[in-house]
């Protein structure tokens, strides 16, 4: 009897759970779902809101991107029109796309490396100094809209710090209109964006470095690790791969979404659209012109860009230290 019970899982089940009908895949799943009733109830409130405000909007956005919709009339299906218009006729979108990719390509990797590098050096400090330096580096990203302080630094008159300093040193004679000159707008926004970029990813790295198993370093020393760089590559990086992947998602997603800083510093629209990004373009069509179908196409392109890049980077990061 005992042996038979082990061989046949159905007879081993308690009577209350055992289904009356012969088991199929579906009936087994149904039984499982019933048994996990409490899990679903706990999940439900969050998941309903999450679906309503995150999942559903993405789906709606994708559907609307194939329509003409002005919020007044019922959406009219127009096929790929919005996309062809976006890529073939809308010159400003192409500027926005170029700027966004430039921001992502520069601020993404630099901020990611900076997050790691500073976290790594800070981790070598004593506890009190470590807490202090963490605060210093994290403060800009946490202090809300304080980036407008850069307006004062790069202000176009002689009272701006940058102009004042350069004039006093005799490098320039007239104040420069930093934020109204196309050549300077992008570098300044990139600088401010980097200043703001040591956020959640940075904290994750600080935390990750503290969780690396200390005995691994001892073992590494025995196995011939000679300097801090080897230690970093062979021990530290592989040990904190999960945090590295999390940090990458956070830094990348932020680097694609430049908009607030651009609007605050360069204006909206900026001079000759020099600081236009996909997000500001989206805001333009979504909230100023009410071309919702077209705005949805922009949103969908941005969505695919962000998610696609993230998934590729995740794949690459799995290889760290292998």
């Amino acid at each position, binding site marked *: 009897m005992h042996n038979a019970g082990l061989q046949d899982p159905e007879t081993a089940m308690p009577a209350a759970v055992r289904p009356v009908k012969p088991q199929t895949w579906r009936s087994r799943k149904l039984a499982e779902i019933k048994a996990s009733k409490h899990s679903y109830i706990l999940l439900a409130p969050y998941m309903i809101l999450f679906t309503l405000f995150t999942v559903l909007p993405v789906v709606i956005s994708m559907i609307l991107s194939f329509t003409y919709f002005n919020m007044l009339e019922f959406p009219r299906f127009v096929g790929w029109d919005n996309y062809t218009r976006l890529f073939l006729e809308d010159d400003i979108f192409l500027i926005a796309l170029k700027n966004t990719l430039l921001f992502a390509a520069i601020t993404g990797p630099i901020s990611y490396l900076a997050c790691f590098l500073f976290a790594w050096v800070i981790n070598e400090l004593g506890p009190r100094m470590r807490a202090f330096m963490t605060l210093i580096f994290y403060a800009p990203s946490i202090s809300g*809209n304080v980036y407008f302080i850069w307006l004062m630094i790069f202000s176009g008159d002689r009272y701006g710090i940058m102009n004042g300093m350069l004039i006093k040193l005799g490098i320039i004679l007239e104040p420069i209109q930093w934020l109204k000159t196309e050549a300077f707008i992008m570098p300044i926004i990139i600088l401010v964006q980097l200043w703001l970029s040591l956020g959640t990813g940075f904290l994750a790295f600080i935390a990750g470095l503290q969780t690396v198993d200390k005995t691994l370093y001892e073992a590494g020393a025995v196995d011939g690790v000679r300097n801090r760089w080897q230690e970093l590559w062979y021990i530290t990086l592989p040990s904190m791969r999960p945090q590295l992947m999390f940090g990458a998602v956070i830094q990348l997603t932020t680097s694609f979404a430049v908009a607030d800083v651009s609007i605050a510093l360069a204006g909206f629209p900026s001079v000759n659209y020099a600081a236009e990004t996909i997000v500001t373009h989206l805001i333009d069509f979504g909230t100023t012109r009410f071309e919702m179908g077209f705005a949805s196409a922009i949103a969908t392109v941005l969505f695919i860009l962000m998610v696609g890049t993230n998934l590729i980077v995740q794949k690459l990061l799995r290889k760290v230290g292998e």
Partner: protein
Amino acid sequence: MKAVYELPKKRSGRLLSLSLKRRRKRVNRSFMGTFSLFALLAVFGAFMALPLVYAINNAFKPLDEIFMFPPTLFVRNPTWNNFSDLINLLGQSWVPFSRYIFNTVFITGIGIVGHVILASAAAYPLAKHRFPGKTFLFQVVVLSLMFTPVVTATPNYMILSWLGMIDTYWAVIIPAFAYSLGLYLMKQFMEQIPDALLEAAKIDGASEYRIFWSIVMPNVKPAWLTLIILLFQILWGTDGNGFIYSEQLKTLHYASNQIILGGISRAGAGAAVAVILMSVPIVLFLFSQSRIIETMATSGMKD
């Protein structure tokens, strides 16, 4: 190599932390390497801190010092004038300024409480239960970390207007409940609660809800704090996202922008309001730093 091999023998029996301190000196760490790394930290630390220092100093400068050539970083004759100007200015606003403060505090408070409770309730089964659809649901949440909310802004407006929430506090509060980074961090943190603890409660006859509320929740306090500060950052800085039009419902951030953008005559008051606004999240972080770092330690994405 010889020296390295001797390490474990000499140190056997000592405390690990002590041996670590010694090890740092022994494993080849060139002085130049250490020096240049700390020099790097100092230079970039200054880059991070100076704009904030400048902002704080500006708030205490008299107006003639704000507009002085050459401009100075540090204040020479500190004054509280900008703050008293600010208070005067606030007294004149059409909607009493306390109303803006109330709006922001209300939105931030309710938003945070709701988010912490809902996200924790959802994180518990995702971290500790086994049920059909679990992996899928969590993967959708992770995927949602990969794009910013601006992607969904337009459809969100339509959904909020169907629900009749446009131009109410709820237009900002309810979507904040379902902020996905919070759920993600909470779920990762809950995974380290020992299963034995939950099993023991189950054997004692506690329901899932009771286990969640009386055992899981008290054990994840560091994660609460992290969720609180993340959501605080978002909601404290919200200007209504274009969902709130009525002046009497608008937020502190919106009102302060009006002051900051007020031009030359408001430069002093603008600097003062900026300092007040930024000090709140910084002070919050100052007191919760170690708890937040503790939560972030579990934030990693597993393969």
